[in-house]
């Protein structure tokens, strides 16, 4: 077989596999849907607010509950030193509570 036909066939095969994997296999199956629903129910039942992904520090474990100054820990210059702290951003939009300050401060909290 000509090299060109071999390569084109390979590419076509890869493209097909790509399309099948990304098209057909994405999205949840029935078991997935069950699991997700069960987890959502768990969240509701226990009143959870965060994923238990980063158990390094309080503010990485509960980033949505952390107060504005928790990254400073106990000292103003105790800057971020937990690796996963770099994966969660500081809030880009103001908290509801601080909405009245919007536009009045030079930098966001």
């Amino acid at each position, binding site marked *: 077989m000509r090299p060109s036909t071999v*390569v084109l066939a390979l590419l076509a095969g890869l493209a097909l596999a790509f399309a099948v994997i990304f098209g057909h296999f994405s999205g949840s199956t029935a078991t997935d849907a069950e699991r997700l629903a069960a987890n959502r129910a*768990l969240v509701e039942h226990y009143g959870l607010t965060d994923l238990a992904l980063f158990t390094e520090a309080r503010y990485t474990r509960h980033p949505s509950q952390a107060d504005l100054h928790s990254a400073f820990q106990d000292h103003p210059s105790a800057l971020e030193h937990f690796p996963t702290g770099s994966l969660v951003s500081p809030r880009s939009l103001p908290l*509801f509570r601080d909405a009245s300050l919007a536009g009045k401060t030079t930098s966001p909290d």
Partner: protein
Amino acid sequence: MHPWLEKQLHLIDFTLASLARRKTKNVGLLLAYTLIVFVLASLSLFTHALRSEASYVLAGSPEVILQRMVAGRHDLIPPGYLERIGRIRGVQKKEGRLWGYYYDPVVNANYTFMARPASEVADGTIMVGSALARERGLAPNNTISFRSYAGKLFGFTVAAVLSPDSELLSADLVLLSENDFRRFFEYPEGHYTDIALSVANPQEVRTVAAKLSTALPDSRPILREEVLRTYQSLFDWREGIVLTVLAGAILAFAILAWEKASGLSAEERREIGILKAIGWETGDIIRMKVWEGLIISLTAFLLGGIAAYVHVFHFGAAVFAPVLKGWSVLYPRFTLVPAVDGLQIATLFFFTVVPYTAAVLVPIWRAAITDPDAVMRA
């Protein structure tokens, strides 16, 4: 077969033969390119799937959580606070919650302790998350002791282990009765950690929160929408490590493309001259090079993408696990639901295939348009 098609096959034959002449170099190139696509695609798939799952699952979290702030820090809810909220229209339920952190020196791990009603957890028993159970080797009916911050030892019996399917949410949870919680942490009587409120109508949540702020000026309401927003910005591309990985991958890719674009060797220039001399048009030469760019970049993209999918959704993004774990001891085992963001994949395609193909064309452009008589003179 149509002459145009036959001609493209000829061009591809030639370009493959050219690539085969420097087999090791080109295979290395393909591998490097595939690796870059793999890393970028893995990152993209993983973060998107995690964010999707978080926003779905956390949609069940309380509508408003009220915290009390003293001198900028989170402080306890004192007795009477709940009553001061009074009756606010739209609030269906308000309850004081008790939860906190515990550092376990045995495994150097942090746990989250949560108090639950007596109907769920009896005094003297606890329910634990499955990652914790795994780490401490716990099963139902085992006993475990925790030393409180005051120095006293408390023993508990494990009543149940939470489902492993929920590890992403419950990995480090220890659920115990309110009495046990207060005794263990020596929590002041009548105080709570925070207050969870449920509001029936989502449109009213902000109004309720406004009323709360007025009634209790030292409080800080956290709305569910803010919780969800926190998790939307998780792994944002501007974030520390993500930015570093991205920058690294883009730099590597730029080097690759630069190497391609930075000019032809004398040998390559001569070959283009020969092709023109024997009857290839400028357009034929350019078309041939476009095929070269497309074949390499498409192969790398497809292979890298498929590998990324398998990596993230079958192997749980094992490559990123050390980063995500950071310094924590407990790390949840979880498989994500394949949620693919078509836009991200399309962007990845556009930014890998197009620049590379263009980079292949740049150096040959001039050679392809010059007169071939230079060949005769060589």
